[in-house]
C-alpha cells in the first residue's frame, strides 16, 4: 500500500479534519492554498535561503565511528541538533511563517510542550517582525523556565494553559480555542504532524528537507542514495516524518520509530501510543491515542517533554497499521543510558527525545554491512538538569 495523503487528508484510515465549524474557514483556507504557495518559486527561494543562511542547513550526515564500532554496524547521525535553536523544529516554523505571510496573516499563535517548538516559533516571528503568542501548560512553564525566558526574550507572549492537566495537550486545546476566537488575522503554527488536515502533511513537507538532504549526502558518502534503516523518535512524530518522507515508499529502506515507554509500557506512566493507544479522534484528526474505555484522553508520561503527547500523527498510525514501519519503545532509563553513551563515545549530547531512538541499538541487532541513519533531532543542552539529576553528575 502506498504511503501518501489523499484529497481529504487521510493516510489509509487515519487523518481527516474533525473540526468544529468555527475552525472550518481557517483550515479550509490553508487546505486550498498550502500546496500552491509551497510550490511557488519565490516561496522555495526564500525558504531555502533562510534554511541555508539563517538555520545553517544542510546539516551534516556524520559517520559516528565509535558508536558504530560499539554496535558493529555503520551509524550515520543526521545532525538536526546543529540547526539554529537546537532542533529540527525550526524547519517547520520557517516554512509556516512564510506561508502565513503569503496568506496575509498578522498574528501567529503556537502550542508548546517542552518549549522547543515555542522557541522555534518565537524565533521566526522575531525574524519577520510578526506578533507571537505561545500557549504552554502551566506545569510545563514551571518545568521549563529557560525556554519560557527564551521566548519572552524574543518578544513572544507566553500564556499559561490552566485547563486540564496543564501540559501539552491542554496548550493545544487553548491554542485551538484562541484560533476560534481570532479566525481572520491569525495563523496557528502547529509544531508536529498532528491536527486537522492539511497540518500533518504540511508539517511533514517542511520537515522533509531532512530526508531530501539525506539522499544527496548518502550518495556522496556511500555511493547509493538510500540507507538500510532510518531510526527516529516519535512523540507527535515531526522529525520522524521528515526523516522518512522521501523513503515512505522505498521498500529497500526499513523505517524504525521509537516511542517513549516512560516508567515501563504497562506501568501506567508511559507514552507508548502504538501499544497502548486505540483509534479515535483528538485535536482534529483520526489517529491512535491513549484513551479510557469511555473515550477520554489519558495523560501520557515520559521523562522527555517532547514525547509527552497522548497520540501520534496520523501518518505514523498508518505506518504502524500497515507494518511499513517498525515501532520500538524505550523507557526513561534506557533512553538516559543511550544519551550518556552517545555523549561519551561521540562528544554529542543528544536531546532526551532523540536518546529514545538511540536506545533501539540495545534492542535490535543490525548487521555489519547495514547503513543505519539516526535522525539526531535535537541537542541535549535543554536537558542538562535531567542528565545531572539522573546520573548524579554534580
Amino acid at each position, binding site marked *: 500500500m502506498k504511503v501518501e495523503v489523499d484529497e481529504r487528508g487521510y493516510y489509509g484510515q487515519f487523518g481527516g479534519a474533525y473540526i468544529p465549524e468555527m475552525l472550518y474557514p481557517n483550515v479550509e483556507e490553508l487546505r486550498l492554498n498550502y500546496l500552491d504557495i509551497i510550490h511557488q518559486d519565490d516561496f522555495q527561494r526564500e525558504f531555502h535561503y533562510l534554511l541555508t543562511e539563517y538555520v545553517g542547513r544542510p546539516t551534516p550526515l556524520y559517520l559516528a565511528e565509535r558508536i558504530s564500532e560499539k554496535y558493529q554496524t555503520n551509524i550515520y547521525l543526521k545532525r538536526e541538533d546543529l540547526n539554529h535553536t537546537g532542533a529540527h523544529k525550526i524547519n517547520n516554523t520557517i516554512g509556516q511563517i512564510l506561508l502565513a505571510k503569503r496568506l496575509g496573516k498578522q498574528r501567529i499563535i503556537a502550542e508548546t510542550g517542552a518549549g522547543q517548538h515555542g522557541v522555534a516559533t518565537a524565533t521566526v516571528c522575531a525574524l519577520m517582525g510578526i506578533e507571537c503568542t505561545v500557549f504552554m501548560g502551566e506545569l510545563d512553564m514551571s518545568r521549563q523556565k529557560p525556554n519560557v525566558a527564551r521566548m519572552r526574550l524574543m518578544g513572544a507572549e507566553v500564556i499559561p494553559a490552566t485547563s486540564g492537566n496543564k501540559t501539552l495537550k491542554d496548550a493545544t486545546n487553548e491554542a485551538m480555542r484562541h484560533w476560534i476566537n481570532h479566525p481572520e488575522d491569525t495563523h496557528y503554527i502547529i509544531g508536529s504532524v498532528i491536527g486537522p488536515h492539511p497540518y500533518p502533511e504540511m508539517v511533514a513537507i517542511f520537515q522533509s528537507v531532512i530526508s531530501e538532504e539525506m539522499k544527496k549526502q548518502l550518495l556522496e558518502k556511500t555511493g547509493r542514495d538510500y540507507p538500510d534503516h532510518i531510526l527516529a523518535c516519535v512523540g507527535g512524530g515531526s522529525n520522524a516524518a521528515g526523516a522518512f518522507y522521501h523513503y515512505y515508499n522505498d521498500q529497500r529502506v526499513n523505517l524504525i520509530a521509537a516511542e517513549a515507554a516512560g516508567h515501563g509500557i504497562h506501568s501506567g506512566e508511559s507514552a507508548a501510543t502504538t501499544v497502548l493507544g486505540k483509534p479515535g479522534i483528538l485535536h482534529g484528526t483520526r489517529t491512535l491515542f491513549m484513551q479510557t474505555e469511555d*473515550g477520554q484522553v489519558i495523560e501520557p508520561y515520559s521523562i522527555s517533554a517532547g514525547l509527552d503527547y497522548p497520540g501520534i500523527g496520523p501518518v505514523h498510525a498508518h505506518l504502524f497499521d500497515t507494518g511499513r514501519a517498525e515501532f520500538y519503545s524505550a523507557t526513561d532509563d534506557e533512553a538516559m543510558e543511550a544519551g550518556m553513551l552517545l555523549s561519551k563515545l561521540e562528544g554529542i549530547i543528544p536531546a532526551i527525545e532523540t536518546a529514545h531512538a538511540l536506545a533501539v541499538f540495545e534492542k535490535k541487532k543490525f548487521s555489519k554491512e547495514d547503513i543505519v541513519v539516526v535522525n539526531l533531532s535535537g541537542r541535549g543542552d535543554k536537558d542538562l538538569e535531567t542528565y545531572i539529576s539522573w546520573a548524579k553528575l554534580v
Partner: protein
Amino acid sequence: MQTETTIDNRLDQLFKTKKSSILSIYFTAGYPKLNDTVPIMEYLQDSGADIIEVGIPFSDPIADGPTIQASGNQAILQGMSVRTLLDQLQDIRKKIHIPILLMGYLNPVLQYGFEAFCEKCRQIGIDGLIIPDMPLAEYQEIYKPNMDANGLFNIFLITPQTPESRVREIDNSSRGFIYMVSSASITGAKKGISDHQIQYFQRIRDMDLKNPALIGFGISDKQSFEKACEFSRGAIIGSAFIQVLSKSVNLKEDTQNFITSIIA
C-alpha cells in the same frame, strides 16, 4: 430512506407549533452531581424550556470555554460517560415530553460504538445529536444512515465566517434546526450582541433557509435572549445556566428562577 418519515420527531412538532422565542438549554450530564442529570431535565421542562441539550463530557472540548470544560471535567471525575448517561436516560420519556438532544464530541460516541449509540438513542427517545467535530462529508458518507434509521436529526453549526454556499449546503443536510453560532468564539466567551452580529443574523434570515435557526453562544440573559429572538426562532443558553448550577444550593428553585428570568 423509508424510516425517515415514519418516526415523528419532537423537534418538527415543536417548530410547527411554536413560532417564536424557543428556548433551548444546554447543561452537562452528571453535573453538579452525577445523578443530577434527570432532575435537572425535569426542572427545565417544568420551568418552560422548550428543548433540552444534554452535554456528554469530553476531556478535550476544543470548542468550549472554561465554564463548560470545568463542568465536564467534574462530571468525568464523578463517573459520567456515554454508557452512564444512556443508563440514566433509560426511562426519561416517562417524565420528559419536550425534545431532547445529546451534544458532545465525536470520540466518546465512537468508542461506545456509533451504531449502538444511535439505536440506544432511538429506544430512549432522543430527537437529535449535536456533534461539533463531525465533518459534513463524513456525516454524509458514514454516519447519516445510522442516524436516519433511528430517527435522529443531526444539528449543524454555522458561524459568521461560514460562506453562503456552505450555509446552503449545511441547510440541505440539516433536519430540525440550524445552530447559529452568534460570533467567532468558543462557548461562554462574549456577552451581549453587537451591531456586527445583528448584520450577520439579518444576512442569514434573509437567506430564507428551509430549516429554522436557533442562535447560541453568548446568550446569557433576558436581554440577549430577546435580541436573538428578533432574528431567529429562538436561542440556546449553556454556560450561563451552568454557572447557575455551579453555585446552586437548590437546583429546582435556582433552575426555575433562571428560566423565569429569561422568559417571564
